């Protein structure tokens, strides 16, 4: 019925990354920025999902990039550089989060039945929104706020699987949980986000007219 969304080609697929790493390991350190530049957006998204603050996320990314540079000799050719970099960034962001106890936003309570399954709370019909609508800042803002309102474990799993496009196994390994737990957690994160967004995203984004403030009910 629905097609599986195709993840975009990741920077790790780009030819030349391995050669860059080889040259950096052999002393051409100035090439490191070239290596990291295609991953900037993803590692910022990873740090921001955890810290929910732009300045803190940027600091975490800078620190993570420096750590990646310092430990580039430890990077193994059989791994994906992008995944390795995301792991370093997540560790850095988590460390900062622990330090600052920055849980300002109260996570939404997830709704479960007696068996522990998540129960959707809203059955609003949500027509497909073209990705081009993401050009609108209001939509991005709405999505960012919805994700920020989830509990940390749901934010992390959703970010790794659906924003960084890691496989379930890679996601589970990064978080140190089993693949089965990762699947359960991911399902809840996805359903909670749909519940949060469905009432506001009623199809108005597919029309041409500009977004009217106050249209969204949450």
């Amino acid at each position: 019925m629905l097609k599986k969304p195709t993840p975009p080609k990741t920077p790790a697929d780009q030819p030349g990354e391995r050669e860059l790493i080889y040259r950096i390991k052999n002393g051409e350190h100035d090439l490191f920025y070239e290596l990291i530049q295609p991953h900037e957006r993803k590692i910022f998204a990873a740090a921001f999902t955890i810290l929910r603050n732009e300045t803190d996320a940027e600091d975490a990314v800078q620190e993570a990039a420096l750590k990646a540079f310092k430990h580039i000799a430890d990077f193994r050719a059989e791994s994906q550089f992008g995944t390795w970099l995301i792991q370093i960034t997540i560790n850095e962001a988590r460390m900062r989060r622990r330090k600052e106890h920055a849980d300002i936003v109260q996570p939404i309570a997830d709704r479960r039945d007696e068996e522990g399954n998540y129960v959707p709370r809203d059955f609003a019909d949500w027509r497909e929104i073209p990705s081009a609508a993401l050009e609108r800042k209001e939509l991005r803002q709405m999505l960012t706020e919805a994700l920020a309102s989830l509990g940390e474990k749901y934010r992390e799993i959703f970010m790794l699987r659906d924003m960084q496009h890691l496989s379930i196994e890679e996601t589970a390994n990064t978080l140190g949980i089993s693949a089965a737990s990762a699947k359960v957690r991911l399902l809840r994160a996805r359903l909670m986000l749909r519940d949060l967004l469905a009432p506001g995203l009623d199809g108005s984004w597919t029309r041409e007219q500009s977004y009217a403030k106050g249209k969204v009910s949450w």
Partner: protein
Amino acid sequence: MVVSCEEVWREISNYLDGEIDPDLRFAIDEHLRGCNHCTAVLMGTGNVIQLYGDERMTELPPGFSERLHQRLSANMSGRRSFLGWIVTAAAAVVAVGAFEAGRFSSSNQPEVRSEHTRTGTGVPPGMMVVVSAEGKTFHVPGCRFIHDKAVRTVTARVAIKEGYTPCVRCMKEFLRA
């Protein structure tokens, strides 16, 4: 095989990820044909995955790349390649020459524009920074703490000479040093 709404909700992730047994997929498709609620949940969840998975979802703060580049460059100065060392040495010769020339023209320390700040002794003199006529500090281009829109780009040496001090946010690495 007949599936209930609860079973459909439990399998939505697997269904969308294509990780589902063909018989179960068929049963879910059958269920969806007659259930608007489950169809709405499935379509909405598919939309969530599609939208958040798009690269355009993440917008980098203005000047992010420049600041990251600066931070990396500043920290790599002690780990340069041989070619890097030659370039650095050449730049140092030019900088020392310029400093000596400046010393003859003015032997006094520049008068800082704000008494609450520190002069930028750790900032590489050749680094390009931005200043504004009304401001007291100089910044990495794109720093979000620049308050004025009308800025001009100068070298850090010129900015310091004119009495500007480093921004404690975007230049903190150099202040620590």
